[in-house]
């Protein structure tokens, strides 16, 4: 059960990382990146590092997401080809 959970989290982590890079819509990329941070926080907790999990959840999923969002709204939403 624990191993299955680990495998699911790792697969989701890799999937969200790839999707965040591949997404053409930068808003979608930022949201997927915050999902990545949230899963990473769960992984830290599974690795018995609650301090890092708190930091990752607050900074990775919260602060950087909003900073990226503000930067996107200030510039362009679509990636230039």
């Amino acid at each position, binding site marked *: 059960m624990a191993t299955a959970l680990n495998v699911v989290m790792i697969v989701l982590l890799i999937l969200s990382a790839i999707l965040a890079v591949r997404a053409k819509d930068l808003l979608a990329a930022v949201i997927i990146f915050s999902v990545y941070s949230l899963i990473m926080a769960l992984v830290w907790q599974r*690795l018995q590092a*609650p*301090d890092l*999990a*708190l*930091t990752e959840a*607050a*900074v990775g999923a*919260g*602060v950087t997401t*909003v*900073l990226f*969002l*503000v*930067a996107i*709204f*200030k510039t362009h939403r679509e990636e230039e080809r």
Partner: protein
Amino acid sequence: MKKIISLLFISALGVLLLFVVASMPRMGDPESPTREHVIPRYLENAEEETNSPNVITGIILNYRGYDTSGEVTVIFCALACVLAILGREKRGRIHSYVDRSPVPASPVVKTMVRFLAPFIILFSVYTILHGEISPGGGFQGGAIVGASIIIFTTIFGLWEASRRIPQKFRVPLEGSAFIIFFIVGILGIVGGGNFLTYAWPNIANNLQPSVVLWLTIIVEIGIGLGGAMVLISILFAMMREEEAIAPTA
């Protein structure tokens, strides 16, 4: 051609990294090299030497106080760079950003943010003050305060947020993390120890055994306040609108 080369390079790098991962010690292995040098000493003596029940807090703020003060300085430098490039927002000339955004915030979001923000701030106070007992501490609590204010700012706009956290209150607190670290470090020198040894309270230990713990908590509060203010200031600097007109209200 370019694609083939980069694919080859990335796969070679991947194979190399996989080899490294395969040769890493198992997680929780008691004989792994990372557990043989300083970790036993930390685990055995941290509680009586640093007086903090949470060993991680003792390591971060006491044994490795230099590292942490360096990190605090790095965060402050990040703010300095942002301000050097973007400039600080001007009082009275700031404008609600969300009002002009193509997607206005819905009443549900507004109500939820107004309802949740005090509880998030309360949780962050708990995280900071309880940091030497449970997971968390200055950095985490500061990030949570910053996140709650950042959510508030994105929903209600810069004008509302900067009325609640005025610049004259925010600016002096931005450097509080490093200043408090420095003061506590100097106290160590005054007490006859090295910088950041927390030695001064050790002399006073006969009178008050928990002074080290109190100094640790003060440093945590300083880090939390400083980190939160730096995050808020970075957001405000990013959101300010040069050409915006001050609201009539």
